[in-house]
């Protein structure tokens, strides 16, 4: 399991409007492409200096493909990253605050302590 790589996915997709839109409209394609092309990209380094060992496990890939924010939370993905990206994906289809409240309600079963978000 790689909380770091999930966070890296959320971080890099959220900050790039083109990737955000691709993730909204075709998450299966985007997750597969991202893992192949961007998972190993190292910030501040040239593309040639790729990290060689980063990969999702099956549960992580599934949660990302299915836009499953509850599973991501339970895996310890950083909640701020998930929330920010998912608001960008889905707020547009809802009334004011409606999506944010539904997002919370989907996690009503979660109790404290929350999953550890340390990477």
């Amino acid at each position: 399991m790689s909380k770091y790589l999930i966070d890296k996915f959320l971080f890099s997709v959220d900050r790039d409007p083109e990737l955000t839109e691709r993730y909204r409209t075709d998450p299966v394609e985007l997750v597969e492409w991202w893992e192949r092309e961007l998972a190993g990209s190292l910030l501040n380094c040239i593309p040639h200096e790729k990290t060689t060992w980063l990969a999702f496990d099956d549960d992580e890939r599934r949660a990302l493909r299915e836009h499953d924010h509850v599973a991501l939370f339970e895996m310890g993905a950083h909640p701020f990253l998930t929330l920010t990206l998912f608001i960008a994906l889905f707020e547009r289809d809802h009334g004011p605050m409606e999506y944010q409240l539904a997002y919370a309600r989907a996690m009503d079963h979660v109790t404290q302590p929350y999953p550890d978000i340390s990477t």
Partner: protein
Amino acid sequence: MAELVAVVASTHHPFYYRTSTMPEAERPPFAAEWIAKIEAFRETLTAARPDVLVMVGSDHFHQLWLDNMPQFLVGKAPFFDANFHNEEREFGLPKMRLRGQEDLAAHLLRDGLDRDFDLAFSNELRIDHSITCPIITLRPEADLPIVPVYTNIFAPPLPQPRRFVALGGVIREMVESWESDLRVAVIGTGHLSLELGGPRQFGPTGPDPVFDRRAVDWIANGDVAGCLAEVSLESLHAPGNATHGFMDFMLMMGVAGEGAKADFVETVDLFHTMEAYFTWYPGGDPR
């Protein structure tokens, strides 16, 4: 030596800009009270007539990332561009550019090392809403040079609360030992109880109003010892999963000093957070 003319601690609510700039008829019902309280808060900084602002905040995974994460960082550059794409997208925040005060930044970096704070630095820092929100609320002219100080309240492992308080104390000593005749204000922003991305987010109040009341009392009374006795990295999970941002308030209590009662205290209850505003005048109230 430089004079520390004001110490200001505030929550940073990213929706204040949008709320206060939309046409009056379209504003939500809580807007009028919120705007009036912010304008009164702004007067407390204006009255101190600062020349330079030290701005304490925390990058929200904008420029600083997990491949290379500093605990405490000082920005040293002639300018700082500000606000990121996702802040424009979600909060409607404008792009901004602020001037830097490189002499003070260099002094904090050198003197910090010599006072056992190994501060990281950045010569090309884009600052986010943790610093631009208080510029918008407190100094909307955005005309004063700044020294950004970023803290890690976001990506564990985090420094202990006592380190935030200690850094606040050291920032004060460093400002007051800066060889300059400029007037310096230290402004820092954080949160009271806050939940983001969890089941308690966006409730009718902040996730833990009891914590919020106690926190306001600690800050308003300068009760550093009482606060440190109650608050730990572990305890801050309970009031809400983003409550570690309270440690930036603890840093500001460190700047103000043990037992220093705030000269201005105000709060606003919004639907998912309590906003809180504090000003101290170390050299006396100029109003």
